[in-house]
């Protein structure tokens, strides 16, 4: 059995909602089949008021063993470093977070806000928000570079806005079935099993990418979203097209450009005028190229792709 506590800071509850979409295992399966004991969760917990405060205090004192601490949402430091703008259970949330992180075996940052600061930390970051161990690309965050949970692991970052339910449930099952040792993390402390491949891996528009056939505006039944509509699939690490969303689709499959939400910079360009759903280019070449591809190589590649393009590639492929 593993005790799990889940709190929300500067959050929208989106990761909780996403988690509740889980199947194999469902949220209930985690409890009944894998012995995950949910001590309290903001949307699911039975207790209120003093009852919640007692649970938190018992975790901090060690009276209750805290195996897994999941945090959703940013750590709010405003105003003036006090954290008073996000009070929870009678005191600033950030004070609970520091004490609970120190008491936990494993600390999980779930979603962009908890990992990198996310939307709340977008300029001008009005709430002085941080992620647990990062602020955007910078290591450190609220808990600091040297933080290690009792297990010896740093914060496990499961980014995404929101995170796919599998990305968290499979990690919980790994912990519950004694496979925590197999967890390999990348430089941003993301589990490699999910975040080594690209969002583009498995995209149904890959053939159009290969022949440089563009979806030039929304609602088209063909074409790749990278060339004109700002899709970040080739530069983003996530399994969105390997482990489908809500079991059925992904944004790029449905026709929505990837926003790169598993990367620290999300939302990219701080949403400056002219950057939303539009590929940023210099002299007709995208500013951000597929990871590892240089400009010269890209120009050669697209020239060859255009030359090789078969006629069918310009016709609708996702037909009625």
């Amino acid at each position, binding site marked *: 059995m593993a005790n799990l506590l889940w709190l929300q800071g500067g959050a929208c509850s*989106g990761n909780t909602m*996403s988690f509740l*979409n889980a199947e194999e295992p469902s949220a209930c399966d985690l409890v009944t089949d894998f012995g995950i004991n949910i001590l309290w969760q*903001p949307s699911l917990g*039975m207790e209120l008021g003093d009852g919640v405060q007692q649970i938190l205090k018992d975790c901090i004192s060690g009276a209750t063993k805290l195996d897994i601490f999941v945090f959703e949402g940013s750590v709010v430091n*405003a105003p003036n470093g006090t954290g008073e703008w996000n009070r929870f259970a009678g005191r600033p949330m950030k004070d609970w977070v520091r004490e609970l992180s120190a008491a936990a075996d494993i600390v999980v940052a779930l979603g962009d806000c908890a990992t990198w600061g996310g939307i709340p930390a977008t300029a001008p970051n009005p709430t002085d928000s941080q992620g647990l161990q990062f602020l955007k690309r910078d290591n450190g965050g609220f808990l600091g570079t040297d933080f290690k949970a009792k297990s010896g692991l740093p914060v496990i970052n499961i980014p995404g*806005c929101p995170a796919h339910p599998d990305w968290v449930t499979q990690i919980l099952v790994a912990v519950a079935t004694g496979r925590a040792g197999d967890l390999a993390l990348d430089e941003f402390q993301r589990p490699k099993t999910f975040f080594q491949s690209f969002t583009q891996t498995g995209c149904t528009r890959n053939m159009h990418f290969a022949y440089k056939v563009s979806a030039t505006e929304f609602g088209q039944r063909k074409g790749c979203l990278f060339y004109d509509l700002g899709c970040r699939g080739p530069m983003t690490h996530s399994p969105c097209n390997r482990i489908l969303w809500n*079991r059925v689709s992904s944004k790029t499959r449905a026709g*929505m450009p990837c926003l790169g939400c598993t990367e620290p910079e999300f939302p990219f360009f701080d949403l400056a*005028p002219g950057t939303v759903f539009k590929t940023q280019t210099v002299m007709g070449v995208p500013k951000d190229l597929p990871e590892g591809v240089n400009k010269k190589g890209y120009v050669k590649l697209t020239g060859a792709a255009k030359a090789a393009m078969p006629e069918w590639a310009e016709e609708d492929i996702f037909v009625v």
Partner: protein
Amino acid sequence: MSAQLQTLDISPVGRVEGDLDVRVDIKDGIVVNAWTSAELFRGFEVILRDKDPQAGLVVTPRACGICGASHLTCAAWALDTAWGTEVPRNGIIARNLGQLAESLQSLPRHHYGLFMIDMVNKNYQKSPFYEEAVKRWSPFTGSNYEIGVTISGRPVEIYAMLGGQWPHSSYMVPGGVMCSPTLSDVTRAWSILEHFRSNWIEPIWLGCSIERYEEIQTYDDFIAWLDERPEHANSDLGMMWRMGIDVGLDKFGKGLGKFVSWGYLPHEDKYNKPTIDGRNAAVQMPGGVFDGAADTHKLMDQMFTREDTTHSWYDEEEGVVHPFDRTTNPIDNNAQDFAGKYSWATAVAHAEHGHLEAGPLARELIYGGGHMEDWQHKDGLLLDMYKKMGGASVLLRHFARMHEFKYIYRQMERCLREFRLDEPFYIKPQEQDGQGWGATEAIRGALCHWIDVQNGKIKNYQIIAPTTWNVGPRTGEEERGPIEEALIGTPIADPTDPVEVGHVARSYDSCLVCTVHAHDAKTGKELSRFKTS
């Protein structure tokens, strides 16, 4: 219980999506005064200033992970009205379908996950229904809890077909939607709806067919339905109702008795050239204001919206202002001062009617009015129940929410029938400066966005969420907010576990995460004024 006044501070009240603190004064075991405090501030409107005009499509669904489709709907319609777009019928239908899918998801998820688990509280051990409640509704392990929470994920699979994922897609854009669903998307969506009907709505929720439930038009019809067959009485709806009456959920949570809805679901042939003023006449589900005491229904207009910051952590000019004219000027010291300022939420009010309650009960009471056009949705059941039961209560409010599956399900079927797959889903608009307003009904009530685009960027963005209406503090005239008022008269059996306060807050399906307005922590600077042209 002595007659002494006892003050109870409850921090947090969970299962309300966000951080809510409640203070109640109790006398003889009954709440005699109440204050609600929204305790989280994130500053989305500040973040949106000077950003790309379409930034709201990315940011605002993320204001709320529960009602993201509703925020996206508002953000898209606000830009449509600002840019003067044309939206093709398929685009309107695809937006409506996405929002309906989110709402259908929310019914079992809220019911089992957030509301019903309070029925297994030890407070109700003496109820003859208690044993069965524990069996069905215990968190995680209850038989119907597990079915309900798990199946709640199915309707949003339809959303994912349109938008790629739920929550947090941005597939609704000015001029329509990003997707062009194919035949197999539509057939799969039909199959998901049928699955939801045949695995939850009919066998678990109703104990009868949807068609039989649709015959219920009055309170008497409902009671007759309940008594008609044991399958009805023992369904989750039947059990919820009977246990609710047994433990007295119909006896408290009355509230203000004044209600608001923006109406929603624009008709696919009536809102293709969207304007702010043309909206009331274009929506299938009519909006309005219902005043219970006067028994009157009126149309609602965004121009009636007012915000009052007397008891909120902002330092602004006296009196009430339209959100367009608001200066958002926060104070650094957000200590709870119940005689002074005690919440990040503002008091949202109607210029003539003051505080109003938003939510499914509000919608349903408005559907019972005679103020709408002939082709718009009508349903008199809740208005009849409201009158015969002597007003609102925790039980009636929650019943209203769950009753909505009826039209949500039928409207989703209608969307799937009305798609014309060979016609466009998107007409590329011309970007331009302008002011816009987009509104809808999230499952938990009236939601709207105002946008002002100038020089190709956002000059001002304002959101008023349903919980801002409901959880707001007192007005300057000391009228309590809707939930504050609804707490009055609530019996508290055990002050160390005041589950009844939770019932009231959860009957409003409160959602604190997207309730509060914006300010800049670093400078405390006033935001620009939103001027009506």
